[in-house]
C-alpha cells in the first residue's frame, strides 16, 4: 500500500462539507464534516473492507489513519484522544494501552519500530460530492498545508 498522508485545513468548511479519503485514484466521501468532534475521531469502513480512523484536530484539520492498533490488533484507534507534542505534532493515543501515533507520519512516538498506515484526507464539498475545491487540489501528489507529502507506508 502506498498512501500519501496530508493534513487539510478546513477553516472554511461548512456544515454541508464532507470528509473524503483517497482510495486508489479516487476520493471517497466517508462522513459529514459536522460529524467530527474536535479532538476525537470516528471509524469509517472503506469500500475494500479496510477500517480507517478519521480525526479532526483543534485547528480544524482532518487526519486519517488505519483504525487498527498494532499493539493489540484491536480496531480502536478512532476511539483514542488526540494530543499534541511540545513541538506541535498531533497524535492519537490508543485507548487500550495508550501508545501514541503521529497522525501525519503514522510513526509510533513510543516505539520507533512501529508505524501505522496513514490515509490522505481532505474536505470536499457535498455538492458535487467529489469535486475538488481550489485550495484542495486532488491528485496523486496532493500537498497539505505544511507543504511536503509525507510518510510512505
Amino acid at each position: 500500500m502506498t498512501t500519501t498522508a496530508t493534513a487539510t485545513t478546513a477553516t472554511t468548511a461548512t456544515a454541508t462539507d464532507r470528509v473524503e479519503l483517497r482510495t486508489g485514484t479516487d476520493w471517497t466521501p466517508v462522513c459529514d464534516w459536522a460529524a467530527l468532534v474536535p479532538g476525537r475521531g470516528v471509524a469509517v469502513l472503506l469500500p475494500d473492507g479496510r477500517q480507517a480512523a478519521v480525526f479532526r484536530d483543534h485547528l480544524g484539520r482532518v487526519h486519517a489513519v488505519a483504525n487498527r492498533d498494532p499493539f493489540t490488533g484491536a480496531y480502536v484507534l478512532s476511539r483514542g484522544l488526540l494530543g499534541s507534542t511540545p513541538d506541535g505534532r498531533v497524535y492519537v493515543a490508543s485507548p487500550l494501552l495508550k501508545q501514541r501515533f503521529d497522525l501525519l507520519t503514522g510513526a509510533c512516538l513510543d516505539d520507533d519500530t512501529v508505524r501505522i498506515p496513514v490515509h490522505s484526507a481532505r474536505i470536499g464539498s457535498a455538492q458535487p460530492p467529489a469535486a475538488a475545491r481550489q485550495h484542495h487540489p486532488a491528485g496523486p501528489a496532493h500537498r497539505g498545508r505544511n507543504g511536503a507529502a509525507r510518510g510512505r507506508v
Partner: protein
Amino acid sequence: MTTTRPTVLLVGYGMVGHRFLEALADSGAADRHRVVVLAEEPRPAYDRVALTSYFSGRTPEDLLLGEDGFLDRHGFELHLSSPAASIDRAARTVTTADGRTFGYDTLVLATGSYPFVPPVDGRDAEGCFVYRTIEDLRAIESYAAGAKTGAVVGGGLLGLEAAGALKGIGLDTHVVEFAPRLMPVQVDEGGGAALRRTIEEMGVTVHTGVGTRTVLVSAEGRATGMGFTDGSALDTDLVVFSAGVRPRDQLARDCGLTVGERGGIAVDENCRSSDEHVFAIGECALAVDGRVYGLVAPGYEMAATVARQLAGQDPRPFTGADLSTKLKLLGVDVASFGDAFGSTPGALDVVYSDSRAGVYKKLVVSREGALLGGILVGEADQYAALRPLTGTGTPLPVPAESLVLPTGLAAPAALGGSALPDDAVVCNCHNVTKGLIRGAVTEQGCGTVPEVKRCTEAGTGCGSCLKLIGSIVTEELAAGGVEVDRGLCPCFAHTRAELYEIVRVRGVTTHRQLLAEHGRLRGEGCEICKPTVASIIASLAPELPAVSGHILDGEQAALQDTNDHFLANIQRNGSYSVVPRIPGGEITPEKLIVIGEVARDFGLYTKITGGQRIDLFGARVDQLPQIWSRLVAAGFESGHAYGKSLRTVKSCVGSTWCRYGVQDSVAMAIRLELRYRGLRSPHKLKSAVSGCARECAEARGKDFGVIATSSGWNLYVGGNGGATPRHADLLAQDLSDQELIRLIDRFLMFYIRTADRLERTSTWLERLDGGLDHVRDVVVHDSLGLAAELERQMAGHIAGYQDEWAATLATPDRLRRFVSFVNAPGVPDPSIRFTPERDQVKPDLAVLATVEELLRPLDTVPRLSEAR
C-alpha cells in the same frame, strides 16, 4: 556441607529479635550460619510499639513484622510457643519448657522484659492485668465486656498507652502515678502539667503523687477497687499494671552469666555477655554504659552490632544510645530529646507554656546557643527538625525563642534540612544521617522520598522524620539543578489540585479556555489533561455556570476517555463491558432475570465482580444503547464502572439476617451508594459496609470503609486492594448515621479537591503533609473552616445527579456516537468476533492478529475467519 555451618540460636522473637534476623539476612551472615529461633509467643514477631492499635481495629496479623516468607527465604528455623527454660553453657545447649534441646555455637538472648507489678495485696485477683502482649490485650478486651471502670497503675509511656486503650473500649478510665507528674522520665513539671490537663479533658481521671497500697478483692476473687497510700480508695472493675518493665534475665542468672545489680544481662560494647559464646541484645541487656534500654531503637542498634560480628564485618560497638522519643499518647504529641532536664552544667532554658491549649515547649540550650535537648508537649511537629540538631554543638540557625512560639505569633522558623550538618542523624530508628540521605539523592539518583526510603531505610521506622527527609531531598535536587516538574502533563505546569482550584475560583468551563489561559503549551492538549480537566469540570459542574451535568454534552464529549465516551469499559478486542448498578449488592430475582436475559440475547459473557455486581462483556458500541434501553426499562442505572467515580459500596448481609450483625449494613451500603453514585473524582472510589467487627465486607480494603459497632459506625479511610494493598485507617468511631454521612461527604470532597490525577485515597493520605492526622483535623475538626463548603458541594452533587444512561438514551444527539462505522451505521465491526469457552464466549484474538491488508472486502466480511 550445610550441617557444618555454625548454629546461631536466637532466644526471644520480639521486635529486636526480628531486627537481628533482618540484619543477619542483610549482612550475608544468614548464608553462613544455621539460624534457629525459639519464640515464647504463639505468633511471629509483631510490632509491640503499635500494640494499642489492636483496639482500634488492627488485627494481630496486621501487626506482624517482616514480609510473608521472610523466614523461609533465608532458611531461618522458627519454633513458636517454645519458651527456653534453661541454658547449659558447657554443653552449649538450650532446653525448652517442653523438654526439647537445641545446640548452639553462638547464643543470642533477646528475651526482652516483663511488666513490673508492684508487690501490692490483691495483685493476682481476677481482673488484674499487665499490658505487654497481644494475649494480654485479648484478655483485657474480653474481661472489659462486663466492666464499667478501669484503672491503670503507672502514668508513664506504657501506662498512658494502656489508659488510651481502656478509654477506647469504653471504660471510665483512671491513671494512677506514684510520681508527682505524668511521664516523669520524659517530661518535666511543666510538660507533665500540660499533658495532664489535655488528658483530663478527654475524660481520663489522673491521680498523681499517690501509690497503690492494695487491690480490693470481692469474695469471688474479683478486683473491685484500689486502696491508695494517702488513704483514699477507688472503685474499679479492672486494674492494669503498667508501672515499668524489668529485664528478663532469669535464664542468664540460672546459668551463671553476670547480671547487673538491678537486673539486666551485663554485656560489653560488642553486646557479648560474660560467656564469649553468648550475646544479649535489647531490653534484657545491661549495656556497657550501665543502662538497660527500654526503647526499640537502641535494641535495633544492638541487633546490628551482633549481626555485623557474625558476618565478619567491621565492628560497630554499642556504647549507649540517644533516648529521644516522640510519641502520640491519647492523641497528645509528646517529645523528649537530648538533655531534656537541662542537667548539663551551664544549660539554659527557653520555655513556652499555654495551659489553655495544653501546649508546653522547652528547649535546653548552651550558653553559646547550641541545642542540648528539649521537651515538646501538645505540639511536637518540630521534633523531627530539632532532634538531629541536638548535641551537634552548632549554634541554632535561628533564635531559640522563635522555635517554641506557636505558628502565627512569630515569623515561622523554617528549620529545613539545610540547617543540619551532614553527620546529624535524621532517622533515629535506623541511624541514617543527613549525609547518607544526600548521597542517596546525589549519587544513587533517588529523586523522591519513597526512593530514599527504599535506598537508605530512612523513614521506614516510626516515620517521624519523613517530612525532614522530604525537605532534604527537595533541597538536594534544587542544589543539583534538577527541577522537579510537578506539572500534570506537558501541557500544564499545574498539578491536578491546582487546576481544580483554578477551575473552581475562576469558573473556567472548558479545557480549551483553561489551556489558553493557564497552559504552558498552546496545542491540542493531550490524553492526560483532557480527561483530567473533564473530571474536574464534572466534579464542579453543580457550581459552574452553564455546564451541563452530563459528561457527553458540549466540549466534555471531546475530552472523555473512551470508557466515559461510550459509558462502558473497553476490553482487549475493542468490545465493551456493561455493569449496571446493584447498590450494596442487593438485587431482586426479577432484576437478576433481566440481566440474564439481556446477556443471553446479546451473547454476552457474564462474570460476578469483586464489588458484588455483574459484568456483561463483549458488547459492540452499536449494541450498547439497545442493551441499556432494556436495562433502564427494568429499573437499572449506570454503575459507573467506566468512570473515575464511585464504583460500588459492598456490604455483608448485616443484622437483618446474620446472627452476629449489630447494624443493618445493607441499608447503609445502599444509602451510601445512592448518595455518592456518579461523583467524579481523581480516581475510582470503592467502599464497603460491614455489619460487625468480623468485617465480611472487607471495608478496610476500601477508600472509605464503614464497620458497625454496637453503638454506631466506625469510619475507615485510605484502604486499597490491588498491587499495593493498604488497610484503611480509623478516621472516627461510634458515629451516628448522620455523623457518618457528614464525615464521608467532607472526606470525599476534600480528596477530590486536593488529590493528584489517578491518586487513590491511600497514596493521597500518605503523600499529604500531616497524613491521616491532617485529614482528621480538616474533616472531623474542621481546622481549615472548609467543612460547610465541602458539605455544600456534596449536596450540589446529590441534587444534580442523573442516570447517565437514561439521559443518554433520551437524547438523539448523545446517541449518535454509538455506531461501529460512521459511514455504515448498520454494519457491525467485523473484527469483533468470539469463540466459545466454558459455555460462554471469549474474544477471538486470531481475527485481530490478521494484518489489515489480508482482510477481505466488505461483502465477504461475515466469513472473515474462513478467509484466513
